[in-house]
């Protein structure tokens, strides 16, 4: 009991925090200058450290041109496209928990998503509206880049990567459109893929490869599901990385007009 009478829970807790803050583990995660570090003082040095000592340094330099942070120059469109991509990844993973890409179960799964799954309908709405919004923001980002002349040397290569990203975004949106497997999805995709059949010489083969048969069927669903959740995201992440890397290699955000 003598021991217990001297026991001060608050002091003990503070000591624990001290130990944690000074420990190797904490210090290796929360790097010098970090705003999560105790005693963060606002100084030019610490402002630089916040970026330099974290994963952020792979995205942003320590300093950017002053005109580059003006909202009227970029409208945040590229960053928002990326944010929407992350939102779509998170909501998409949640939807994958409840979705089976086989013709027998798919529509029941969709209905269950609406009625039984916690937040199922909300997450599906977020995924669908987010996808439309991402398509729009990628389009508008391209327009912004064109109007500010940001595709000119030395940024030609990054413009090409950007066009590839636009196409991948459209493909992601289009493959996802089939997955609800309702009348709207199936017939919209039918109209879209009828156009591919018109390609000269290889039209029929292209359509066969994409649909897994001469018309939309169970194979198409599985194929487009795989493209939508695995192959195209994999590709787009690679190209997004190249896109971001090139932005900095080409001298950061393009100059004032």
């Amino acid at each position: 009991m003598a021991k217990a009478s001297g026991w001060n829970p608050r002091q003990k807790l503070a000591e624990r925090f001290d130990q944690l803050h000074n420990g190797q583990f904490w210090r290796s995660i929360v790097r010098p200058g970090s705003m999560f570090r105790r005693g963060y003082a606002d100084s030019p040095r610490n402002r630089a450290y916040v970026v330099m000592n974290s994963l952020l340094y792979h995205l942003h330099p320590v300093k950017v041109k002053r005109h580059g942070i003006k909202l009227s120059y970029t409208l945040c469109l590229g960053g928002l496209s990326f944010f929407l991509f992350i939102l779509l990844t998170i909501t998409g993973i949640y939807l994958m928990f409840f979705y089976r890409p086989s013709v027998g179960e798919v529509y029941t799964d969709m209905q269950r998503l609406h009625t039984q799954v916690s937040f199922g309908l909300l997450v599906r709405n977020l995924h669908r509206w987010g996808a439309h919004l991402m398509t729009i923001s990628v389009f508008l980002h391209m327009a912004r880049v064109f109007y500010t002349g940001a595709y000119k040397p030395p940024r030609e290569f990054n413009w090409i990567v950007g066009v590839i990203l636009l196409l991948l975004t459209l493909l992601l949106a289009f493959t996802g459109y089939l997955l609800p497997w309702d009348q709207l999805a199936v017939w919209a995709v039918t109209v879209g893929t009828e156009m591919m059949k018109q390609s000269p010489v290889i039209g029929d083969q292209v359509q066969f490869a994409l649909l897994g048969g001469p018309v939309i069927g169970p194979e198409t669903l599985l194929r487009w599901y795989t493209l939508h959740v695995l192959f195209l995201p994999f590709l787009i992440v690679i190209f997004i990385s190249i896109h971001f890397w090139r932005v900095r290699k080409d001298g950061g955000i393009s100059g004032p007009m």
Partner: protein
Amino acid sequence: MPTPDEVFEQVLAEETAKGSSPAVAQARAKAARVRAQRGAKNPSVPDKSTAPPPSSNPEASGSAAPSAEQGESKPAESKPAAAAQTKPAAAAKPASKPASGAPAKKAVGNGAGAVPERVQRLLAVVKPEAIQKVERQPMDRVNVWPHLMAAEMVALLVVLAAVTIFSIAVDAPLRELSNFNQTPNPSKAPWYFLGLQELLRYFHPQVAGVTIPTVIIIALFAAPYIDRNPSTSPDDRKLAIVLFSFFMLSFAVLTIIGMFFRGPGFNFVFPWEGGIFFEL
């Protein structure tokens, strides 16, 4: 053997004669001077652990000698002398061939355990053009933290809030189970392809479905190579802006017609008369 300052003068003269820009010449001369300084000091530094250097630094050699006796065997003794002899040559090299990676040649230790090879870490590669860029105009710059990141965070939260509120208010469409025997009328492509579907009304499918998209994609890829005008000022690029705006606008108009002005049979209909036949 030339002193480091002589090396500096010599390389500077050589570079100027070669026609390098003053900045590059200065930088190369400075680099050569540093190499020469290192080369002059080196005989005492890397050999310390193994055996005493012949002349330069008696105190250092005195303290290092016992460890050499304990650790390494006799054959090592002949090596330091050889190493010391090669050093001046290596130091002189940068003076004559400044750009040829002389430091790498210095580390030609034979692996017999005599002179430990210096392991050099590559910390940075500085391209010659980068040296010239030192002279570029200083720009007005701001810290990413907090200025840019705060703006990004606000934009992110605004969009997240907007999407969430919209998602709570409006449900994504889910029609009845797909039925391959019953074509809905009209059946429309997703909105981003409605412009192309609209074109199908005016052109042969091969033109609307293949040729026009291919031309658009190729034109987008080639845009930086078609438009060779280096200016980014809107005043200098009226043609490019007009063409691009025309392209964007016509596609927007086609898409909007496809969305709202096409009814059963994909026939023209006014949305305020016939209703809207469109779902996102």
